[in-house]
């Protein structure tokens, strides 16, 4: 089996798995993780694969619900950060001054620890889901902007761009025929590779207690609640939700990297 086919296969598999999580998460209603005191604090069994918590809620259902929320928030964050990155990299290519402003902005955002910026933004919006989403959306663009800007600079100095300019093609024509084919794949892959970061940060910031109220099924909240029950040996409260989070993040990462292999003609045949 050649590498390209193998890449396509793993893309399909990771895509399917993620789709299953999202669809199941959306289909599950509120009552599926209702409080049921008769079956509280149960260890994992056939009925409840991930066990139940101190209110008798099924942990598998809570985990999937939480993952769906994480993916949703991640989608929003990755999308808006990609838009910001695109806008800023276009701005950077306009002239020298703009370029310096953009690189300065990138440096500024990278000079404060990411989690501290998230805390600041969440604080300034008074906490809540809105604070988390805004924080995630506004802070994931610097790395992608850097990549896109470098790509632009490289394309701009290419001979064929100079030839087109001298042939009298308009800026728009050059942008469409020379820049876009290089930038669009980068943009799309960058969008996908932002996901793992956004999801991990979402889990981290909710774990710290910013954002969602306690009854919301978010992975971060599940894990921070589980801390109170670890010392009495309820390991399943933390183990399975965290493992699922790891797997979803890994799947997104795999999806992005494999798609990059597939799209990028220079690395398509290398492992």
């Amino acid at each position, binding site marked *: 089996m050649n590498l390209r086919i193998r890449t396509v296969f793993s893309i399909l598999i990771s895509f399917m798995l993620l789709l299953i999580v999202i669809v199941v998460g959306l289909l599950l209603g509120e009552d599926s993780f209702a409080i049921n005191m008769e079956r509280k604090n149960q260890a994992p069994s056939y009925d409840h694969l991930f066990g139940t918590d101190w209110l008798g809620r099924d942990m598998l259902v809570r985990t999937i619900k939480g993952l769906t929320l994480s993916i949703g928030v991640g989608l929003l964050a990755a999308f808006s950060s990609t838009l910001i990155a695109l806008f800023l990299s276009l701005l950077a290519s306009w002239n020298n001054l703009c370029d310096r402003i953009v690189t300065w902005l990138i*440096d*500024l955002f*990278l*000079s*404060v*620890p*990411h*989690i*501290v910026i998230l*805390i*600041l*933004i*969440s*604080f*300034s*919006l*008074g*906490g809540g889901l809105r604070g988390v989403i805004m924080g995630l959306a506004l802070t994931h663009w610097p790395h992608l902007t850097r990549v896109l800007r470098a790509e632009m600079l490289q394309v701009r100095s290419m001979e064929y761009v100079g030839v087109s300019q001298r042939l009298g093609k308009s800026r728009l024509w050059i942008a469409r025929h020379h820049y876009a084919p290089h930038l669009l794949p980068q943009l799309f892959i960058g969008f996908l590779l932002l996901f*793992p970061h956004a999801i*991990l940060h979402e*889990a*981290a910031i909710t*774990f*710290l*207690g*910013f954002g969602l109220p306690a009854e919301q099924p978010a992975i971060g909240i599940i*894990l921070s609640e*589980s*801390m109170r029950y*670890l*010392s009495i*040996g309820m*390991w399943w409260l*933390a*183990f399975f939700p*965290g493992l699922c*989070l*790891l797997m979803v*993040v*890994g799947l997104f*990462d795999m999806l992005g990297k494999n798609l990059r292999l597939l799209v990028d003609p220079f690395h398509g045949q290398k492992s």
Partner: protein
Amino acid sequence: MYVKRFVHYFLGKSIRLATLLVAVSILSFILVDSSPIDPVRSYVGADMNRVSPEQRQEIAEYWGLNEPSYIQFSNWVKAILQGDLGTSLIYRSPVKDVIAERFLASLALMGVAWVLSGVIGFLLGIVSGMKEGTWLDRMIKGYCYTLASTPTFWLGLLLLMVFSVWLGWFPVGLGTPAGVVAEDVSFMEKLRHLLLPALTLSVVGISSIALHTRQKLIDVLNSDYIRYAKSKGTNGWKLIYHHGLRNISLPAISLHFASFGEIFGGAVLAEQVFSYPGLGQAVVDAGLGGDVPLLLGIVLCSTIFVFVGNLFADLLYNVVNPQIRRGRG
């Protein structure tokens, strides 16, 4: 000539740091100022019902909260320039002292973790690069990719469960044993409390440094001078030591210095899991408790911390590295 260049370099860097701090303080002040969280409420805390509106007014007056934002900002900046970061609302002591004490604890944690992750990551990278394509390489690579998508705090929870709850080897949390006066805590006790959080934190840095070292070593091993050295009969460890390590160690250390921001972020999470009394826990408390002076103080402090890391990285890369030095001079 050298002296002049060094002065030039450090002058440039100082100006950079100054502009950076100005920008960060303006931006974070704007963010904090627009928050709907009432500072008086977070100062008074649970006794809010017992405070009359007049008293509230007085508190607001005392803290200067009734002034327009720009005056508050200029007062804050003036105080900072005199070395006064204000008073923490939740710890009821000067922000400077809180940060100094907490930062020391965090620094111990981050220092141990930083060294650990650097050494482990570098060794793993070398082994992996030397044995490229073998099962060992694949295992290390897989391990690194898994680590990269592992949530730090979850790993901390697992370690806590296994080593503290099941095996009982380490304490469940805190930086010192409970019920003991701070001066009586022995060094060993402190170390025992430090080890698990540091281990958790070190995992964050391993994967990037290992993958970087691996790639660099593979590049180096494919170079002409390695082929020449091999043709002379040098091989095995000696080859790696003489021709490989010198080339790959500097960029790796440099990269590791540049990861101060990530390690700070990791420390915030690790400290929360282990209730370790460091700066990361303080920033979370400040954010949740509405402690504006402390929050702003820590923002500035962490900015300087990251800047110092990047400065070292840059120094190593530009000044110490002989290849680049010659190219410039």
